[in-house]
């Protein structure tokens, strides 16, 4: 009786092991349903500035992610610090732009005339912009269609008025960042903040990075350059959303940043 019992016990143990072994490959299928650990990093950027009117989000400004710490990118950072651009208002005044055009641009954070639809009210009446009126007349003369002339009006503006300030800014950014990818052996990534000053830098190789807007962003009365350092670890988006990297013009011991804030110069 005991023999039979032991024999059955052996069979049972063997069956158990063989069966367990045969299930081994399928264990991976179960693992497949669980969250795999992230291999890349994500940074949720939140940019704010304090002005006399209170704390505001910094909307629609491009920030760049450069491989390496602030010290490793010291040469670039010194160049960034030494660079100063004319403000939007000063640039357009230097080009002889009308008050109405400067107002039109400033009212909507526009760096060029391409940022808004040309509405009829800016072609005639109290809010008319002289540059637009002239361009519209030329466009109408050539295109013979009022609606097309209105929509295609920017084609008939002088290049400096059209996008001169924006072009200057882009040229400066390109000049500053040229050679950076070769030096750091990594691609420079860039994102633009949304209206709440938020932007996401995703799929980043873990490591230390410099985050900067490279050229000063105009706020109400000042221009601000941020040069910040961030140790990026592999993490998922959910975690990054809960723990944003806050950039501000106020001192924050939690963030390693060099902030250069200059008052907007009066235009000559």
């Amino acid at each position, binding site marked *: 009786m005991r023999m039979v019992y032991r024999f059955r016990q052996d069979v049972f143990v063997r069956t158990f092991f063989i069966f367990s072994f045969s299930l081994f490959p399928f264990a991976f299928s179960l693992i497949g349903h669980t969250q795999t650990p992230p291999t890349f990093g994500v940074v949720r950027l939140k940019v704010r500035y304090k002005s006399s009117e209170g704390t505001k989000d910094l909307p629609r400004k491009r920030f760049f992610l450069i491989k390496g710490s602030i010290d490793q990118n010291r040469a670039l950072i010194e160049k960034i610090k030494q660079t100063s651009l004319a403000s939007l208002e000063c640039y357009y005044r230097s080009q002889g732009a009308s008050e109405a055009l400067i107002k039109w641009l400033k009212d909507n954070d526009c760096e060029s005339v391409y940022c808004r639809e040309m509405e009829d009210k800016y072609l005639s009446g109290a809010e008319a912009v002289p540059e637009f009126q002239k361009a519209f007349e030329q466009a109408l003369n050539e295109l013979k*269609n009022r609606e097309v002339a209105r929509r*295609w009006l920017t084609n008939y503006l002088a290049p400096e008025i059209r996008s001169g300030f924006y072009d200057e800014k882009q040229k400066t950014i390109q000049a500053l960042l040229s050679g950076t990818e070769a030096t750091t052996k990594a691609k420079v990534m860039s994102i633009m903040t949304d209206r709440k000053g938020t932007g996401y830098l995703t799929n980043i190789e873990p490591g230390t990075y410099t985050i900067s807007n490279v050229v000063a962003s105009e706020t109400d009365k000042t221009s601000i350059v941020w040069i910040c350092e961030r140790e990026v670890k592999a993490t998922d988006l959910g975690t990054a959303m809960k723990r944003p990297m806050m950039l501000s013009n106020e001192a924050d011991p939690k963030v390693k940043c060099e902030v250069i804030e200059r008052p907007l110069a009066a235009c000559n």
Partner: protein
Amino acid sequence: MTKRAFIFILVCVGVAALASAQTRRRPRTSRPATQTQAPRGSAAKYSAFLHSSDKHKSLACNECHKVPTKWAAKRDFPDVADFPDHDACVRCHRQQFFTRQSMIGTGPAICTVCHVRAAPREDMRFAFGKPNNSAQQAKAKDERQFTIEFPHDQHQNVIARWRGVQSVRLESHHGLKSLKADDKKSDYNNCSICHQTDMSLAIVALAAPNTDPAMLHPYKSMPRSHDSCFNCHWKSQKPVAGDCAGCHAPAATFIPELGRKRISAKFAHEGGKGEHIAECTTCHINITRASTTRGLTPDVPINTCAACHRDSKKTTYPKAVTIETELDQFKKTGECTYCHAADVGKKRPPPSHDAAVQ
């Protein structure tokens, strides 16, 4: 008896593991865009025009195409609205037009590159480019020989925040028409300069209780005609209208995939019970990074949905259906129905969905 029961349990666990492996989501194989080579061989050779032939490649675009052509009947904006004139073809292809051999059968095959039929007095031509306002006959296949090079990030740089209230614009064929003042709503970044609510596509399979008009038009349109480019690039701002290569790059003949694969087929940009009012980049978090439209997909991570659609946000968004509710429903019925159609909704929710609400 107990041992038998134990073995039975083991077998059950094994079967469950096997079943689990069967239901595992297989990696989706992306189907490449249909690539069709232009027909070759003497009979069909001159019925299909190839920009990529050695001779054609050696010509500048404006040696054949005039910018603009006569456009008034076909467009409401100046455009390359028609095929090149006869001279552009005849100056090299006289033999294909006028020899006796070319007249055998249905007529010179070369005529059918542009004309609906190969006949001496056939004036009717196929539609050229878009939009096809005059309802000309379109070619059987929408073949393309050029891709479009579009730096998305540069264009995003020059658009700006819209502080006030902007009129909602609808795309009617190609033109942008402003609605009445009472149809106004808040709008933020003007991505809508190029991407408006697409009135030509609709979800028609929604059940009656869900016939929210916004849900009927969930898609955003893409620019489909030169009008969207020429409003800034007609002249002066490079690349200008006559510089075709500024935007178009030669490619092997292909038929573009027009259908868009959507994972959350029931999502409507204008829906959310009127609360999908966030800025585009709040959910399309990677779009400002994109330096090209090549391979660009409108990816929206579930975490951005979870910013509102989760139980902990119920006090702020009481009307929102939450991801937790849908996950519970999946456990009961085996299908998520609020965001997904059956093809996706019946699959096991990916781990990202659980993680997003934790």
